[in-house]
């Protein structure tokens, strides 16, 4: 049962990710990436990380992708035109590099030997919260500073000069 859910979610994730990076229209790109993020949220739920699943939808689908959509509409970004001169070398090199990156990631991740068997964990909000304000308190505070800096930085960048 769970395996079926996983396969469906994985297939949808990969297909919509492909659409997201290959379609010409920016709005379609953004929307299919939202679908991918949903499938990743399903994967989190399958992994027992229910808090992360909710946070994934709240942060990625609910905030980040809306921001993308907002900018796409604000700039009224046109669909990407095919380049006047075909650039086969760049294309092949890019694809090869992407394939190598993926294969390398897969190889490295699978090469790490871990004890077989899956330990059940419960990724609930209470346990995560205890870790966040316990051992990771410093990183947590740093993140808040980073977010503040990003906020101010974004404001300064788009501020029109009078």
């Amino acid at each position: 049962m769970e395996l079926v859910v996983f396969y469906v979610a994985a297939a949808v994730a990969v297909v919509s990710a492909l659409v997201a990076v290959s379609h010409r229209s920016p709005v379609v790109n953004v929307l299919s990436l939202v679908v991918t993020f949903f499938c990743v949220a399903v994967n989190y739920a399958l992994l027992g990380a229910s808090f992360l699943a909710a946070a994934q939808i709240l942060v990625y689908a609910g905030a980040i992708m809306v921001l993308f959509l907002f900018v796409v509409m604000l700039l009224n970004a046109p669909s990407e035109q095919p380049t006047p001169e075909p650039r086969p070398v760049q294309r092949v090199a890019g694809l090869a590099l992407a394939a190598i990156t993926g294969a390398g990631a897969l190889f490295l991740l699978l090469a790490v030997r871990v004890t077989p068997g899956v330990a059940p964990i419960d990724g609930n909000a209470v346990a995560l919260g205890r870790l966040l304000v316990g051992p990771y308190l410093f990183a947590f505070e740093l993140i808040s500073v980073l977010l503040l800096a990003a906020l101010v930085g974004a404001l300064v960048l788009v501020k029109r000069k009078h």
Partner: protein
Amino acid sequence: MWAELAVTTAKVVVVALAMVTTVPIMVWVERRGAAFIQDRLGPNRVGPLGLFQPVIDVVKLIFKEDVTPAAANKGLYYLAPLISLGVAMVTFIVIPFGAGHDVSLFGVPLRGLIVAPDLNVGVLYLLAIGSLSVYGIVLAGWSSNNKYSLLGGLRSSAQLISYELAMTLAVLGVLMATGSLHLSDVVARQSGAVWHWNAVTQVIGFAVFLVAAFAETNRLPFDLAEAETELVAGYHVEYSSMKFACFFMAEYLNMATASALTVTLFFGGGTLPGVTLTGWLGLFVSTAVFVAKMCFFLWLFVWVRWSLPRFRYDQLMQLGWKGLLPLATLNLVWVGIAMTMGWLR
């Protein structure tokens, strides 16, 4: 297994039907309420007191011509109303509508009139799904290929994102006091007496939440996404027939969800102060109490809509970022202090 499935199905059917039924009733209440506030009569021809007016309206909407603009982005144009309605239809599964922890159906404990009692992210689920409603509006605005629609869509996405922050912070105060994401725990903590209600212990948080809820449901005084007088009708100008009806239903469903959430978070849900509710009787009484409280807030939505003028866009943003956000933070500070000092039980 099968009995559990049956119980869940029964709960889904009961709750979903109840939520959908509020739509025509609210349409009637809104029209009659508007008439009452404006000293008119309102619809009174179809049925007693015009009660069957919504039925006639639905028939009219179904038979209207369904126009699709030639320059619209077809796929997204059809998808947008479905997103709006779909999001509105799935949010309420974590809201506990009534007690009933000690009764069982088909030999399976009912665990309260709540569709998904095991979903351990409760409120977070509601906020996450609720944050998706912006897609319906933005896509409708963009895909119609109409400048008024686009302006409405852009306005509303900025508005929804801004007010979501204040709303989430206000909810955070309640969650902090409760120490659980389950809405049934939130309700349980508020039982006993009126001064246990979060509306009393967190007045500021409640005020912020209520204002943000009005903004999140795109209701006057915050309906800048529609704003008939300047944007014609905003994001749904180009929609007609049942596609328009989807947006219309979604708005009323969102109102019902927002009211139910307000009752759950701040007004003790289905609990009646000083009364212990048990068994089937308790289930029915608490559901009735919940619905009664909910009706008040639904009426409040209508009342405010026909009493207050619309905000200007810059005023809206100022209120959201400079007014509500600091107030919500203040509420969090208050909850923290009150909990440390042991003023909240």
